[in-house]
């Protein structure tokens, strides 16, 4: 074998290793954790599940000083949640929607309710509605109530900007001492009424 072929094969070996392992991960994870995370990422790639969120989750764990087992578990859980989200939301779902849906699943939303939010939103992206749903649950609004509220808003055709405004208002109400459930439902009623008035001006 001549020098050119040897150099090319060396390049191939280096490139293959680079493809298998994110170099930035290698600098932040120990050898065993890196191998386990890389295997999960490779598996996700084969399943056409977004891989960047998995790498980001490993980065987060490393930045927080978590041990390797915890990082691997977190990455694996996220991979499974994203797989479920992708299946429920359909093949045309964007990576951001999958990521947001995985967050909602992590917060306690069921796969069935995820499908209902998808259906209620029509062709609009579900990234923002699911981020707001996750936030409501994080602010102690019961999962069932939070899901119903977001479904109601999605069915009413509320846009992302109004979802964002709704989240800020509910947060402010809760911070001022309001009951989370009352704040979420009251603000939702107001927004639905306003959205209905805008979309149906004759009513």
């Amino acid at each position, binding site marked *: *074998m*001549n020098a*050119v*072929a040897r150099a*090319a*094969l060396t*390049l*191939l070996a*280096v*490139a*293959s290793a*680079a*493809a298998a392992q*994110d170099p*930035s991960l290698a600098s932040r994870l120990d050898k065993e954790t890196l191998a386990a995370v890389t295997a999960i990422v490779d598996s996700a*790639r084969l399943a*056409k*599940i*977004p*891989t*960047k*969120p998995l*790498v*980001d*989750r490993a*980065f*987060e*764990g*490393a*930045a*927080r000083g*978590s041990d390797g087992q*915890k990082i691997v*578990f*977190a990455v694996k*859980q*996220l991979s499974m949640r994203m797989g479920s989200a992708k299946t429920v939301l359909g093949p045309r779902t*964007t*990576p*951001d929607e*999958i*990521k*947001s849906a995985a*967050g*909602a699943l*992590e*917060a306690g939303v069921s796969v069935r309710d995820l499908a209902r939010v998808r259906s209620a939103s029509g062709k609009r992206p579900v*990234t*923002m509605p699911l*981020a*707001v749903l*996750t*936030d409501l*649950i*994080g*602010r102690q609004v019961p999962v069932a109530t939070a899901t119903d509220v977001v479904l109601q808003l999605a069915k009413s055709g509320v846009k*992302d900007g109004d979802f964002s405004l709704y*989240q*800020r208002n509910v*947060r402010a109400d809760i911070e001022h001492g309001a009951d989370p459930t009352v704040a979420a439902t009251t603000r939702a009623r107001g927004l639905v009424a306003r959205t209905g008035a805008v979309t149906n001006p004759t009513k």
Partner: protein
Amino acid sequence: MSEDDDLRIEGIAGELRKPVRVSSRLDERVMRAVRELPRHSRLGLWSRLLRPRRVTVTPLPWAGGLLAAGLALAAVIGTQYVLGDSSDGRPSAKTAANAPQAVQFVLVAPDAKKVSVVGDFNGWDVTHAGYQAQHRGGGVWSVTASVPVGHHRYSFVVDDSLWVADPLAPRAADSDFGGPNSAIVVQSQE
């Protein structure tokens, strides 16, 4: 060789030694004819490129080398693709509308000595230079940074040790590592 032969050769040589008489207008006629010919510069180049020539190749080392180089290139491109986008198997069009947006992060932390922003957009790197908040006075820390369009989880890190969720942003689920996180959905400028 006979004497007759010698004379014949001498005669031919004598004819050949005579100066050739060329019409004074010959050059002009020839050049005019050349100028009137159609140009074939490309054809000339092609004909030079396609001109048969002899090339000697030793098959195995070169075939192996080229194959390996091709695979290596494909692997490198694959890595760039995987790390460079959301890698859902579909290429993402990086248009101006999808360009990263300026986002201002603000935290009120009167006792802090240092405030950083970490998240999916900077690899959760506490030392990332572009995400170090500046103290604006009165305990208000802020940094305006470029964040890609999409859904991101993030957090503030105070004095390199205390993780604080953005009190004004939606909360993100945080069951994995137990620390608080915030979520941001950066919209494109469409």
